[in-house]
């Protein structure tokens, strides 16, 4: 393959994984927008989403046979995983973060780490510490576009991710709740004075963010074919990086940041080596932050005395 072909091939691969990062990053950024809190347990919620998808399949596999028919179950798998993770997100917020709303800023960080340990070990008890095979929910077909190949799975992932993001966008733009969320992200104090129920909105942000992470988890399982209880950590780290890259608290920023991180690491893996791909992503992040200290789309905070 020529250098140009590698570029386009890695661009496609990077966009696919970037879609998944973007979905996770949205959870980080939405929570940060309304609660000024980095939800460090979010990566684990994503991982639990993947396992919930697997769990549903294990129950459903008795009812159905043949990989072709499985495809009809895909929407149900997604809905099941998303409902499950949004419940987990709600519970995490209610019991680990809400009591600490007035506490020092770093206190919720520690409970988040505790939650991460809890979720990781819970999954390890139930499913075991080894890699789990994630069932093929669809027959993978390859399409050739010149010298680059594209699979129907990649198209499917991109399509579902885009649909979810568009729905989120409409929700944020056009509903009362979405408007209240934007108001909170803009100015917490003023929004509170206008009678916005902050607790309720923070819960909603956690529910929506966790649902998106759950969807991302199922996609991750479908794309890579195996899942492990450790997967949440690195994916969460990269999605968090993506959220910061785009400007934390900024919803379109998280989408762009996720895609950028995905593309960057895929290009790093293609041209350099796959071991160094994470270095590449972090290095670019540090460079961008040095020149644009509040992320790509983040608003500059003017300090007032």
């Amino acid at each position: 393959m020529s250098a140009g072909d590698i570029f386009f091939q890695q661009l496609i691969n990077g966009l696919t994984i970037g879609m998944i990062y973007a979905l996770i990053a949205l959870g980080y950024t939405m929570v940060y927008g309304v609660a000024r809190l980095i939800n460090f347990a979010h990566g684990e919620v994503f991982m639990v989403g993947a396992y919930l998808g697997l769990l549903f399949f294990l129950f459903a596999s008795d009812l159905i046979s043949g990989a072709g028919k499985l495809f009809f179950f895909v929407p149900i798998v997604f809905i099941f995983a998303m409902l499950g993770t949004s419940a987990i997100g709600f519970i995490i917020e209610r019991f680990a973060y809400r009591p600490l709303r007035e506490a020092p800023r770093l206190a919720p960080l520690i409970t988040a780490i505790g939650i991460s340990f809890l979720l990781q070990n819970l999954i390890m008890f139930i499913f075991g510490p080894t890699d789990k095979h994630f069932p093929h929910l669809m027959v993978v077909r390859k399409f050739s576009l010149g010298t680059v190949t594209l699979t129907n799975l990649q198209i499917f992932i991109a399509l579902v991710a885009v649909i979810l993001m568009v729905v989120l966008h409409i929700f944020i733009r056009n509903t009362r709740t979405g408007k209240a969320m934007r108001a909170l992200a803009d100015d917490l104090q003023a929004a509170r004075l206008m009678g916005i129920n902050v607790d309720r909105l923070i819960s909603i942000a956690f529910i929506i963010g966790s649902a998106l992470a759950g969807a991302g988890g199922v996609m991750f399982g479908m794309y890579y074919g195996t899942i492990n209880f450790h997967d949440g950590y690195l994916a969460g780290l990269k999605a968090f990086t993506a959220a910061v890259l785009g400007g934390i608290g900024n919803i379109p920023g998280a989408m762009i940041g996720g895609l950028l991180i995905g593309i960057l690491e895929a290009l790093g893996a293609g041209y350099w080596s796959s071991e160094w791909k994470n270095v590449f992503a972090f290095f670019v992040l540090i460079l961008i932050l040095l020149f644009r200290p509040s992320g790509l789309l983040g608003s500059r905070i003017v300090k007032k005395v």
Partner: protein
Amino acid sequence: MKFKQAVLNKLVPFLFTVVIFIFPLVDRNPYHIDVMVSAGIFVLLALGLNVIVGNAGILNLGYAAFFAVGAYTYALVNLHWHIPFWIGLWISALTGTIFGMLLAFPALRLGGDYLAIVTLGAGEIVRIALNNLDTITGGPNGLLGIDHPSLLIPKYQFGVKSEPYYFLVLFLILGFIFVLRRLESSRLGLAWNALREDELAASCMGINTAWAKLSAFAVGGFIAGVAGCVFAGKQGTISPDSFDFVVSVMVLAMVVLGGLGSIRGVILGALILSLLPEFLRRFEIYRMFLFGLAMILMMLFRPQGILGEVHHREEFKKRNKSR
């Protein structure tokens, strides 16, 4: 009331130190002493990170990289040039300091959560580099055959025994407590506090905030370098696994749990979090599950940390609401 305060402030730490000193003479189980040595290394790390996070108020999520720099420095200078441990200790401290100052440069421009992610990214870069620079660092297998410390007069080999490391770490901790207490009440320590409370106001009062940040990272790097060197000298082998993100997070958890900015609190936090898994060992596979639960509960009941100072609570309370 005053008497009670004096007892709490002077007598309790003194008795605690005495107990720690005679512990290896009473409990001769080498495993227990070994656990205490690792706990002691974590105490060193927590003391160092406390300067950056607790005193200067800069969130650092990549502290394991500082530790790694110290450990790999001693390992490399020892393996290539046979430099003995006691000189390696100073070289490790120096490279730790330099690494800290390098990482502080982004800190001059960035603040808050953005800075945290830069330290996190730098930590990951160091870990991945250690894993992949096979010719220098030995890749995932790490470096083997690092010399244990030894004394010339009297002639004594530390070897794989636990007690000498126990006292080495103990003396280092006491030394750093002495220095850090002095630093805290020095001009520099007060500058750190001012930086933590309000950076803009601090610079208006004529404090060189750039220097304050650089020096906080330098001191943190120095201590982590020393801790890394001791770790490498004790283990004899090091690999990148010992320096991953979880280590950074655990040390941060020790600092926050014990109480930001409180030297005693930080030591207590480090001891609790590094000894708790040992006490939970009988629960086997539920160990880490219970550990996570314990972290949540401790934080819910005492959000400012076990020995946290009240002014931290006040400061962070306000920040959460406004902005």
